[in-house]
């Protein structure tokens, strides 16, 4: 078999094999059970809570959880605006990079705050090392926030009937210290050994083979890059992200980074299963997500490896695949695979230019973000998938003649209302955003670099990426303008916090309800039949919401190319 394909299979298998024990470990961490790393982290966390005066044993209701979550995010927002708008005179700026404008700082802050990292600046010139370190901090804590929110849901289904759903700060701090930090350390070690720089000095000057002098940006890259993946943030240290040779120097780092971004979203599913002691359920969720993922990834790998017929027509050798916008050291197959991994799990780091993907590969990348629930971002993936579970439970409950129930809790009007609003909001943000950009060409579609269908895809991609908190871009869009900065900023905010508030609220409401024991009339939610229902619900919702838009973008482009 092709080594490129073997590499991909190896990546997936390694991730899965690591994700199961990691999931078990995470379940233990959140349940407050003893783990190996207790001696290291117990004192550290105690110190954090002592300094901040937080009682981490204080159990919260779902509303208190949300208040804590939103308050802490507001604080980070204010701090971030200050740092980004004043970098030029603050320390750690050896290259003398300028401060960001208000709208760019707003966009950058929001996009890092929502674990998205849609970057409308270039790392080399648009930010100082202090700014980078601040963003790195945000990459840790926002991943922690997503995971903590997901754990509230875990907790809601662990007890039979409760209003007490654990402590937000406890979940949040443990996510950062016990899960994100150790994993990042391991990845950083691999990167440093493979040549990723780790320095606070300014640009390096080298003389290349032609004898020219080249200024090469460096910095604390090896510290920054691991959390960008482990926390499914995706914000690159450099402008071209994972395609940059210093961010992703070799096939080994490529594999490491791939596993790093994949592992927590996958482990989170198993953690859910271990936590609520329903492992079969976790496997069902994993099955649905994996089938969905493969249905997007496999066609992309094939299409990218087959190459572009237009290029072949010109008589140019196309046997390596569609190599436009790709790195030779990574290749077409691994780039195609990465393009789906990074879009399904909301990392948004890229190792090839999605703008140059084949039309239907571009569509799959879009679909991955439109669905946003196959694995999904750390924590956020489970939260999004949860909404689809509620919808699927409701429809299938009716189909078997029983008031719908999930994990022994009845799904009623209130939960349906919330689930429907959340499910609705995602297409709303994407379609309305794109429609605005298309309707006001002077500020919106003026930014696109290719007219026609592809230009439409560029706009659609930008808003899809924002709404899904993904952060990757169909680059080619000149998006550092007030219109794009502010509109995507708003989409990012809504696309992040509503899908956290909604599922947590539903879980909280369900947790308060009376537990109904299973009978043989109960619809089991850990079966392949129910998995099929979820899969169909996801597919139908995505198809119905986005088919017209996709028809005018990638699909039209595809048929024109044929």
């Amino acid at each position, binding site marked *: 078999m092709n080594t490129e394909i073997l590499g991909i299979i190896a990546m997936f298998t390694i991730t899965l094999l690591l994700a199961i024990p990691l999931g078990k470990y995470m379940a233990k961490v959140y349940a407050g059970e003893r783990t190996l790393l207790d001696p290291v982290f117990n004192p550290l966390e105690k110190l954090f809570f002592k300094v901040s005066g937080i009682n981490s044993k204080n159990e919260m209701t779902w509303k208190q959880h949300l208040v804590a979550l939103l308050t802490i995010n507001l604080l980070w927002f204010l701090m971030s605006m200050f740092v980004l708008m004043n970098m030029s005179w603050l320390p750690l700026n050896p290259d003398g990079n300028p401060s960001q404008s208000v709208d760019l700082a707003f966009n950058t802050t929001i996009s890092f705050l929502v674990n998205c990292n849609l970057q409308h600046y270039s790392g080399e010139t648009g930010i100082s090392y202090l700014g980078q370190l601040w963003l790195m901090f945000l990459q840790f804590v926002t991943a922690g926030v997503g995971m903590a929110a997901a754990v509230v849901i875990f907790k809601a289904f662990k007890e039979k009937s409760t209003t007490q759903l654990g402590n937000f700060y406890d979940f949040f701090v443990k996510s950062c210290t016990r899960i994100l930090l150790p994993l990042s350390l391991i990845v950083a070690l691999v990167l440093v050994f493979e040549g990723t720089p780790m320095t606070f000095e300014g640009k390096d000057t080298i003389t290349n083979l032609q004898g020219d002098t080249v200024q090469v940006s460096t910095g604390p890259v090896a510290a920054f890059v691991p959390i960008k993946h482990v926390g499914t943030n995706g914000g690159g240290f450099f402008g071209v992200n994972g395609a940059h040779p210093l961010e992703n120097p070799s096939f080994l780092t490529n594999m490491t980074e791939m596993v790093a971004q994949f592992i927590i979203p996958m482990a989170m599913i198993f953690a859910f299963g271990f936590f609520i002691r329903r492992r079969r359920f976790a496997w069902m969720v994993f099955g649905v997500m994996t089938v969905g993922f493969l249905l997007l990834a496999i066609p992309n790998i094939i299409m990218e490896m087959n190459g572009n017929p237009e290029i072949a027509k010109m008589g140019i050798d196309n046997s390596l695949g569609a190599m436009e916008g790709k790195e030779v050291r990574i290749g077409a197959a691994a780039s195609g695979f990465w393009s789906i991994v990074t879009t399904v799990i909301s990392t948004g780091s890229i190792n090839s230019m999605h703008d140059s993907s084949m039309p239907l590969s571009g569509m799959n990348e879009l679909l991955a973000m439109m669905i946003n629930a196959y694995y999904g971002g750390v924590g956020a993936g489970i939260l999004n998938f949860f909404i689809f579970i509620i919808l699927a439970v409701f*429809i299938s409950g009716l*189909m078997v003649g029983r*008031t719908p129930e999930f994990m022994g809790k009845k799904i009623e009007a209130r939960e349906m209302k919330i689930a429907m609003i959340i*499910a609705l909001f995602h297409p709303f943000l994407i379609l309305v955003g*794109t429609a605005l950009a298309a309707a006001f060409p002077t500020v919106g579609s003026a930014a696109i670099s290719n007219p026609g269908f592809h230009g*439409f895809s560029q706009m659609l991609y930008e808003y899809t990426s924002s709404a899904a908190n993904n952060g990757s871009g169909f680059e080619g869009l000149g998006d550092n303008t007030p219109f794009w900065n502010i509109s995507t900023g708003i989409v990012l905010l809504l696309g992040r916090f509503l899908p956290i508030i909604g599922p947590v609220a539903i879980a909280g409401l369900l947790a308060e309800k009376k537990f109904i024991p299973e009978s043989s009339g109960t619809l089991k939610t850990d079966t392949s039949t*129910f998995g099929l229902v979820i899969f169909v619900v996801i597919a*139908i919702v995505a198809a119905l919401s986005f088919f*017209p838009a996709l028809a005018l973008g990638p699909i039209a482009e595809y*048929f024109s190319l044929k």
Partner: protein
Amino acid sequence: MVQKINIMSKSKNTSLFQPELMNEAFKQSFVKLNPKIMFHNPVMFTVWVGTLVMLFVSFSTLFGVEGQGSFVYNFTVFIILFLTLLFANFAEAIAEARGKAQADSLRKTREETPAKLENGKTISSSQLKKGDVFLCEAGDTIPTDGEIIEGLATIDESAITGESAPVIREAGGDKSSVTGGTKVLSDKIKVVVTTQPGESFLDKMIALVEGASRQKTPNEIALTILLAGFTLVFIIVCITLKPFADYANAPITIAAFISLFVCLIPTTIGGLLSAIGIAGMDRALRANVITKSGKAVETAGDIDVLLLDKTGTITIGNRKATKFYPTTGVDEKHFLKAVVLSSMADETPEGKSIIELAGVNPLNYKLENPRYIKFTAETRSSGIDFENIRIRKGASDAIKNLVEKAGNHFPKEVADWVTQISSNGGTPLVVSENENVLGVVELQDIIKPGIQERFERLRKMGIKTVMVTGDNPMTAKYIAEKAGVDDFIAEARPEDKMEYIKKEQADGRLVAMMGDGTNDAPALAQANVGVAMNSGTQAAKEAGNMVDLDNDPTKLIEIVEIGKQLLMTRGTLTTFSIANDVAKYFAIIPALFIAAIPALNELNIMNLHSPESAILSAVIFNAIIIPLLIPLALKGVAYKPIGASALLRRNLFIYGLGGIIVPFIGIKLIDIVVSIFI
């Protein structure tokens, strides 16, 4: 008159579309176009708005507005949308008409009848108020619902229940209720009116069906939210499509926009939703069950535990004598004679069954001065005295007491038989003559034929059955096992039922029960579904949320299935409706853009004739699928107790996959026809 109504109310196989109902429904489908009424159904209301817009667009083309296509095309779209509205209204109207006809046929039984008041005056039944007391004698029709306060009568209730055998109703007991329209066959009763005119259960039910007081059930509300959500998604999709299309230089006509929108929103289920709900109550009424709310029917589908009285439900009303055990040394003929004589005056079915088993006509025996001893709760025995012979028949401990008091011996073999019979679920009666034991009569409960299968069916639905009986635990256990119920409450007092219900509910289960007595009332109120028998006391009927006109305890099983059918019909049609959208997209999207983007013709996988014919075909399909599904909505999707997962697979296959495939075929066929005209 009564006879005719009886036929109507019992004929369960009335055709779905009777001409007189059709006329009424047809009229109503226009009346319901009133926006105030339409507004209650968000999905159809948006269609209503779209139809109005199309009317304006059609006429604007006559006045020279360019770029919207021809008048004929636009007007055709308008007509089809208008039909879509009418079809949806018709679905609701026909369901209402059927429910109303059903209720009316019951209501007719209570036409004006004279009522004789206590003071001798005669007034019309409609003038009776709550608290009035009237008298009824043999031959009278009872003017209105009430409770007997004095006397006993046999009553023909066939007008309500269709059951021709007369029933006995008497003051004081649990069978003290009489229903208006039924006929007194013998004796005389004094009845107090229990409801205000126009407030009987039937009146309430009719109001429910007619929509005056019909409230959406919780499940209906949740489903409406889902449908409204989908409608909103499609509003967004359609509105944003305008700038998208402009960007692509592919202008879209208003007709195409509205057609796309109407096809996408779940009009099929939206149009049929209230019809499904009404049909559920109507099906209950056809089963002769009056429901006090739509919610009760829905809850019935969720029942986890069913409390059933043994007598009448699991066993045929009465025990029968099955075997005689004469004591050693007693002549069998002598024993038989004693047994028959002791049962001569016993009017109970048990008594009659003893004579039947003995096969001797008691009148063959010539007796002098017989004196019959009636059964009392204290002696727990009955019998006969003649000459100087005293024959007694009763519970073993009562007879034992009697025998031992007289200084005689209670044989061990008799005691053994008694234990043996009890443990086999029977009831032993010991017979004595002059305080000497003659032998034992075995009475057995006869389990209703076919009841085991019904319980098996319930078990497959996930419902636990509990038998409630006054028998001792040993007998109860035996019958429970034989009948196949999951649990039993022996020596049950009304409080025990209540406690059992509360216990199950505390564990989160939904409980249904049936009852008739006043002392059942608290339990009926406590149960999630309480079905009161129509013959039961007023208190019981007030407490429950359904009234069974047939007084048939096995009715609960039917009610549960009706509830499940109701939910399933909603679920499957929702799935079908949404799955249809896939094909509609493939019809309309290429049609919208084909002119500007010829490459998109590749999406026209149905190979439809032209953009106009494609759009018209999709809209026509969308309209006619509603009337085509009305029979299914009214009859309900068949429930099969094959386990939840299997049922889901089955329905997903039929209505999900079917919902995807059917419109592809339907739209293509319609397109072939439409293309002839374009």
